[in-house]
């Protein structure tokens, strides 16, 4: 079984995987494996992007996404006469046998099967089987990745890495280094315009259990990147200053506090 292994720490958001897929399939007819993809609108390989954080702690999380060739793929069950699993483990739709089957596009719960109105067929990623059968080692999307974020692996041969990766149930698309939510802030004595270096910041869960303890760095910044989608309490202790307690609600997104101005104890 072939699979995609994606290291999200190495995805720079260039979209080359999505674009190479289009270069391979838009306007090119690889029958009987794949008919042409329309010029726009289908994403057999799709990069999702999410802006995270607030000024000045902002990042974009890019996620290359693919059909998972799921173990329980509903298309296989619904249309065994025109949907099959090929020698690489990819779920493929026979374009001729499936003509007119617009229902197939609706069956995929993840949106990775597309209806082509002009050709009256449902279409999806084939893993570039037409290339793999003719000397290529990997599909176009992976070949186009410059940073090593995308790899086309043998599930059996790369079991160790797969064990470290996360994936949707039954899916054969594996992700390394999936980012978690973060809490960030900067601690400052505004009366003298100085950041506080080495301040102790304790992060606790809603029950008051300590989750992490971090210190502010040379810029007065503290960051904690391992949050769940939950509420946290943040306690800031700086010697000689009033302590501060804050709530960080990571349920809807990352938390970046406005710069935190501490006040000297009387």
């Amino acid at each position, binding site marked *: 079984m072939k699979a995609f292994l994606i290291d999200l720490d190495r995805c720079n958001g260039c979209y080359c995987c999505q674009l190479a897929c289009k270069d391979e399939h838009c306007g090119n007819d690889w029958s009987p494996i794949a008919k042409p993809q329309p010029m726009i609108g289908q994403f057999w390989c799709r990069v999702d992007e999410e802006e995270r954080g607030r000024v000045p702690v902002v990042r974009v999380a890019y996620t290359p996404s693919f059909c998972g060739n799921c173990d329980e793929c509903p298309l296989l069950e619904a249309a065994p006469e025109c949907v099959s699993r090929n020698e690489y483990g990819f779920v493929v739709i026979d374009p001729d046998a499936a003509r007119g089957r617009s229902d197939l596009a609706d069956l995929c719960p993840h949106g990775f099967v597309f209806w082509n109105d002009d050709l009256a067929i449902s279409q999806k990623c084939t893993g570039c089987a037409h290339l793999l059968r003719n000397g290529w080692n990997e599909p176009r999307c992976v070949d*186009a990745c410059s940073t090593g974020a995308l790899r086309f692996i043998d599930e059996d041969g790369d079991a160790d890495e797969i064990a470290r990766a996360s994936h949707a149930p039954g899916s054969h698309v594996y992700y390394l280094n999936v980012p978690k939510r973060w809490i960030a802030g900067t601690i400052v004595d505004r009366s003298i315009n100085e950041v506080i270096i080495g301040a102790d910041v304790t992060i606790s869960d809603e029950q008051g259990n300590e989750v992490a303890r971090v210190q502010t760095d040379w810029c007065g910044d503290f960051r904690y990147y391992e949050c769940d989608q939950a509420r946290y309490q943040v306690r800031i202790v700086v010697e000689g200053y009033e302590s501060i307690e804050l709530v960080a609600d990571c349920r809807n997104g990352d938390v970046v506090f406005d710069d935190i101005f501490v006040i000297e104890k009387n």
Partner: protein
Amino acid sequence: MRLSDDTAVHNLGLESFGGGANIVAVDALDGKVARIRPVHFDEDYTKEELNYWKLTGRNGTVFEPGMKSYTPPFPLVYKCRTYSPNRIPFPMKRIDWNPDGERHPETRGTSKYERISWDEATRIIAAEIKRVHEAYGPHSILCQGDGHGESKAIHTPHGCMTRLLDLCGGYVMQARNPDSWEGWYWGAKHAWGMDPVGQNTHSTNTAQDIAQNCDAMLYWGCDLETNSWGWGGQQASRMAYWFDECGIEHIAIAPDCNYTAAVHADKWFPVLPNTDAALQLAIAYVWITEGTYDREYIQTHSDGFDWFEYYVLGNDDGIPKTPEWAEPLCGIPAYRIKALARYWASHAVSIAHCNGGSYIRAAFSHEPARLEVYLLAMQGVGKPGRISIKYIEWILFGMSSCSPLPPSKVVPNTAACYNGPLIGDMDCFVPKCLVHKALRGEEFSWHGRGTAANGRADQFEQFSFPAEGEPGIKMLWSDNPSFTTSLNGGNEFQDALRSENLEFYLVEAPWFEDDARFADIVLPICTKFEVSDFGTDNDSGQWSAVTYEKAVIDHVGEALSDWEAIQEIARALEVHGGVYENLWMRLTGGKTAEQQIEEGYAACGIAEKERDFEAFKKRGYQLIPTVEDWESQLVGLSGFADDPDANPLETPTGKIEFYSVPLATMWPDDEVRGPVAHWIERGDGHDDRLSSDRAKDYPFLIVSNHPRWRVHAEMDDVPWLREIETCKVMGPDGYAYEPLWVNPLDAESLGLRNGDIAKVFNERGAVLGGVRVTERIRQGVVYMDHGANSDVIVAGLGGLDRGGAINHICPTATSSKHANGEVTSGYLVGIEKVDVFELAARYPDAFARRGFYDPSYGADVRDYLVDGKSCHTSLQAEEGGEQ
């Protein structure tokens, strides 16, 4: 199954000028481009043959060149450009321009076009050249022959016409400004030399040095995840990831969380546009007052520091440049400025650049560029881990010392078969940023040839135009009709194109974009893959390469290459005899393209024993191994740091000059670019601070970067790019608008929401944009990339553009009065929500004349033709779309 029936290797970088980058393999099938893909070097070479290198960081992480080309997005989508529905299909003539009667310059930009034959087009062009020559002389033809077209040598997209005109008496060249280097060029060079563009040219082996010795890298206005794509590829991204892995802190300094900061940055300092000088001065203030700069280095390696110290401490203007002084100017809190200054003073810190952006192409950009050199000097630049590097143009102008990575043993060139002009090599010229004046027929003078290839001293030479007794420009011949969307003062340029003074405007281009729609005659030009050529790739950060760029498809429509087109014009001119006699043979020497490729290869710089033309032709490319003993080459500026007398810089003193004697001597009264870099509040035609009275009407500063999904004006018609979330914003009228980034706090106060259409405006006019509410831009600033394909509703100053070509409303005034750089970012604008349906009702004709417009690719040449008929097929047409 047939995957292809023909394959060639092409460079798809947009260097032009005979350079190249981004080599890819192109597979053709049945006469069409089937796919464009990275080149796998390991199919043709062993690592030993290439003298493969490995660099090791201090924590043992390894960086290698890799054995395939690291192709950025643009080459992968290039067949959309080849088969764009907006290709110019055949020669076209503006219907109400009559060379024998009324010329109607005032309707340029609004009148439609009719199809004419190549014979008719070249006959008209030849007659016009002859008429202009006889009536006014050769110095009345201005060649706009520069820009970022495709990288071709024989068929060079820029300046081919100069070869022709040179043989019939001469021409006037538009002297291309150092457009991505303005501040360094006009400023930094006066502080540390570094000809020709003012960025560090001593970068040899600095990647290795940084990986082992640098603690933090300041990515100052640096977007390597965008700007490297057009001209170098993704080795830059790989190197940035390696530095991250080495534990080097990545500090981004820019008004926007650019595409590099978005994936790499550990910290982001969101400085207000074009206020970096205040931040830099405050850092210097902290170092001077706390005694934390390298005093000994300053004594031995620099000149004039006391002038700078005197200014920073406020002795000449009564204003100490404290962090508290800088905070309201630059938008960075004083406490963060102090923290950064102290960190920098106690660690090995380097600076990274990738050209462009507000930092280096705003008003007075020479000041932050010089101040950066001052700061580098104050912390001992050239010592381990302390340097300035670039993530782009690693072999700029053939200088392999610009690369931080091991260079190849030869830098190949295409000179022997290049049919364009060399930058900086001009007899008669006007500076690009002043070209408006020439088109209007004005007399004017300036200092410096001012092209990217000229040395520092050139800036002191005075020129004027036109020469005494000459009538000035009457004909414009352009192969780069994208001035209005790429350069300074776009709306004013449109007015200049419609000037009575300009009798004939000829354009040759592949696509019908921007200024081409103002031309009187338009010639269709072909793209890569349609012609065979000889090329190079020197900017990959891997190995230099030469390419045998075999044509894999036929010419699209009636297009010819620029080189082929001017041959047709040469033949038409021959009919007139005299100075035009035997012109074609004089131009070409009777050589075929194949002969020129062979000559180009023979003289490219590769030693004879390593050349094999037939093998080169068969393989399509040849890589040049890494230079022997690259490890022993001197690191960056370490020679200067160790012994400045033995290894001087190219400044008059050989040292870093805080005080420039040449500037002081030449222009003692220049208070904007004085002998020592200063904070400049306003001057020389610029009044664009948030503290200005103008900010009452135009309360935002705008950032215009090199575009993420274009290369300047190129690529705006690629459907696959336009589908990407950050590329376009779909309006309620089904039009794909150029994104306008607005901070959520500003959006709230302006009543703007995601997907709204807004007007960006100032005194010079307005452009429309689609709102993206985002934390990627700081409060008080809006962001809109330059280079969008314009869709002019009202032309000229005060005009309105629907396409989002933001440079229509940027200043025309240059960097400062003696520095002819463009100012295309960091200026004041207002923002206002608009109702596009109300606008459509107010300008019914302008909105209605875009019947063929398709949001998936944008403008369509058929909308500009009287009969609405093109003649070639696009990719889309094959799927059953209309054509």
